[in-house]
């Protein structure tokens, strides 16, 4: 098993490199760069040129890429071009904020989805299924920023029971204050993660229910409940586990829009701002981070799958 994991990790390295090369290339292909975004007619062309030189824009792209890569490998995330802050410090303060928001939402959505999906799948075509399924369809098509604005409008503006902005009231460090800020974005994100998972559970429940072993159980006279929770459930949960691993990158980039709307000081607003300003050192670090998590997430899915499914484990061994 350890060998397998190690092999997968090593295999991922060229893929990661390829991703960084592609990202770097695409950013350089953009019709403008971060310096253009900063230049004003008040700066003399000499000054603009000096700034360009400072950030290495005058050297060819492969030199810049190499410099960036060497820096990254030495643990140097670099500095933002637009406002000069250390990207490492920025991320260290922002990623925990994002995780703290995304993880509870995802777990809630995940558990709710298992329950709702199983119920819907088991009652395929009945009223309960229709309700759950149409809820999933509707929430899948509703953009999160709209839900967020709606909640802000109702709870923050009309009823004035919850704060609208940020993670904390300035200068207040209490749990209640944090939770009051947390609840709206948490609700929005849970709502955003829910429908995809419901549909997944529902469809795999339906597939499982049509399998032979269910018919055998029925023939043995097992009750629906027994079939659903002792037999179908465990088979349904298998593919669901893969979704767990694939959700890993969401911990960094899973709430970009929600965070921006609520002014939550996570990775989202930071990333959006960097993309707007073509602040490539920031874009690159976040892309490397999230693509690493995608690869690791897939690996995690496979490993989890191995652990819980004896059939696959048998083949590996």
């Amino acid at each position, binding site marked *: 098993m350890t060998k397998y994991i190690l092999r997968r990790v090593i295999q991922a390295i060229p893929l990661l490199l390829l991703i960084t090369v592609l990202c770097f290339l695409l950013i350089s292909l953009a019709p403008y760069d971060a310096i253009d975004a900063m230049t004003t007619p008040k700066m003399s062309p000499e*000054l603009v040129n000096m700034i360009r030189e400072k950030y290495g824009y005058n050297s060819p792209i492969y030199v810049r890429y190499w410099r960036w890569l060497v820096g990254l490998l030495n643990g140097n995330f670099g500095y933002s071009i637009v406002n000069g802050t250390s990207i490492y410090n920025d991320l260290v303060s922002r990623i925990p904020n994002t995780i703290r928001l995304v993880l509870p939402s995802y777990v809630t959505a995940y558990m709710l989805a298992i329950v709702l999906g199983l119920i819907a799948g088991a009652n395929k075509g009945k009223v309960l299924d229709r309700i759950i399924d149409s809820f999933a369809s509707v929430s899948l098509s509703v953009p999160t920023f709209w839900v967020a604005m709606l909640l802000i409008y109702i709870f923050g503006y009309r009823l004035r029971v919850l704060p609208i902005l940020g993670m904390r009231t300035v200068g207040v460090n209490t*749990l209640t204050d944090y939770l009051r800020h947390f609840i709206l974005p948490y609700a929005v994100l849970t709502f955003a993660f829910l429908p995809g998972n419901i549909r997944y559970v529902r469809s795999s429940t339906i597939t499982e229910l049509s399998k032979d072993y269910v018919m055998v159980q029925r023939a043995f006279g097992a009750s629906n409940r027994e079939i659903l929770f002792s037999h179908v459930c465990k088979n349904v949960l298998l593919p669901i586990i893969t979704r767990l691993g694939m959700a890993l990158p969401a911990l960094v980039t899973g709430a970009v829009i929600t965070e921006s709307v609520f002014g939550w000081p996570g990775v989202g607003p930071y990333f959006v701002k960097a993309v707007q300003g073509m602040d490539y050192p920031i874009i690159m670090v976040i892309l490397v981070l999230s693509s690493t998590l995608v690869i690791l997430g897939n690996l995690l899915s496979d490993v989890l799958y191995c652990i819980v499914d004896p059939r696959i484990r048998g083949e590996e061994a």
Partner: protein
Amino acid sequence: MKRGFLKQILALTLAVALTGSFVGCSGKDPVVENASAVEGAVTETDADKANTFTYAISGDPGESTNVITSSSRWDLSTIKLIYSPLFMFNADGINWFLATDYETEDNLTYTFHLRDDVTWSDGEPFTADDVVFTYTEMEKEENLGWAYSQLVYEQGTVAIEKVDDYTVSFTFPFVTPTAVEMLSQIFIMPEHIYKDVEDYEHNEYNLNSVGTGPFQAVEYVPGSYVKFRRNESYFLGTPAIENLVFRIIENSDTAILALESGEVDAYQAIPSEVDKIDLEANNLETYSYSEGRVGYLMVNAKNVPDQKVRQAIFFALNKDDLNKASYLSEEFYLTPYTFLPPSSRFYSEEVEKYEQNVEQSKKLLEEAGVTDLTLKLGYSGSDTAQSAWALLIQQQLAEVGITVELDAADSTALSAQMHDSENDYDLYFGGYIMGIDPDTFSSLFESGAAYNYMYYDYPEIDELFAAGRAETDEAAREEIYKELQAKIQDVATFYPITSNNKILVVNKRIQGIEDATLVPVYTFEDTSYLKIEE
């Protein structure tokens, strides 16, 4: 077996859930408070709220904010709170801070007298050494200071000299009418703190520094807010407001709701946003002030070389309609007729105004022998004002038989395109906020200048700029710039559309806005005049 499997799943899910809630809770880790401390904090907040002014800002100043390299709006606003300049140079004249007056005999050497009653917030006295230190650092090439090109010229560098502890002189390498303006808006940093700093962006002093401004930064949470406390020893008098918070809100809809709910006290809005806000019901007030901005339509003379055609284009346009479409009410804009903002001392309306005249336009097109003209117009798709203009101009030009092809672009991508002399646009929108003196506009209008996107070649314009630069007599300069404005209008490559105001929406509990004075970029000239009245 069955049990074992389900147990595994359960354990796994539980583990994840627990980590989730654990992370959720540990969020507040820096404080593990007991109940009484929590109560204490709540009462303190209420008291805090009563003497805190919260301003919604749309960008994160960041810990790299410093007086040398920072040049963005919110960085500069932060600096304006912490530090003081010698003086500010605004459209209505000089506003003195650390200096009290200046004198010059030869228009080369300018001697400034400094206040002798100022101390840094750590108690050290402020002296001429700090001034010399700041300006010298600004002139160093390796520091890439924002004012570098105001102090270092091809002809030489401005020489800075300490005359005595409270007198400093600046010597320009040549006579220039913009000298005083070029020395303004530079904030003085403490030599005793920064003397060994090599990298102004990355050091331990920024944002927790010692200053001479009305406030001091006390807390910065990246992406959330910067909190300031008043500087009790501020030399123009202790500010009335105890705390000032810059709340970072990048989403404008959220900012407006926060303003309406009272979570923030002030926000810079655009007219369409003001239109949506119920000011009365939310105890809000608007203040509109000029930043000396000019929003324009430019013609790329390289692609439209015929002056008659360009004049025909201008005669087909209706400026009022354009402004009303994007700025709704006349209190939010002024209508300019030349390249200078109407707030400029040198602004003149003795020029061709190109009032809409469809017949004239058609006649000019006929004279030029042009039919079936198609023009490509570039504009920023995310700019609501420009998008509205684009559609209107397409309509207005259609009336004289000109087809306009609209090309919405990202604003930076567009300006990068404009910078390329081979670009294929015929028309583009843009806007600028330049200096106070008309000479600061030369980088946009002289033939071949770095930011002249009209790509014309008119030596007469360059000569007038040169004449204005060389002249020191005020009245003579006025004449020169009057002629220059008329000339630029005549060549018809530049069509000023608007000089739109900034609009500050403020909660009525914040008073003293007029005394604090609204100014370009920094919002307030002196925050120490703001008051809170519940």
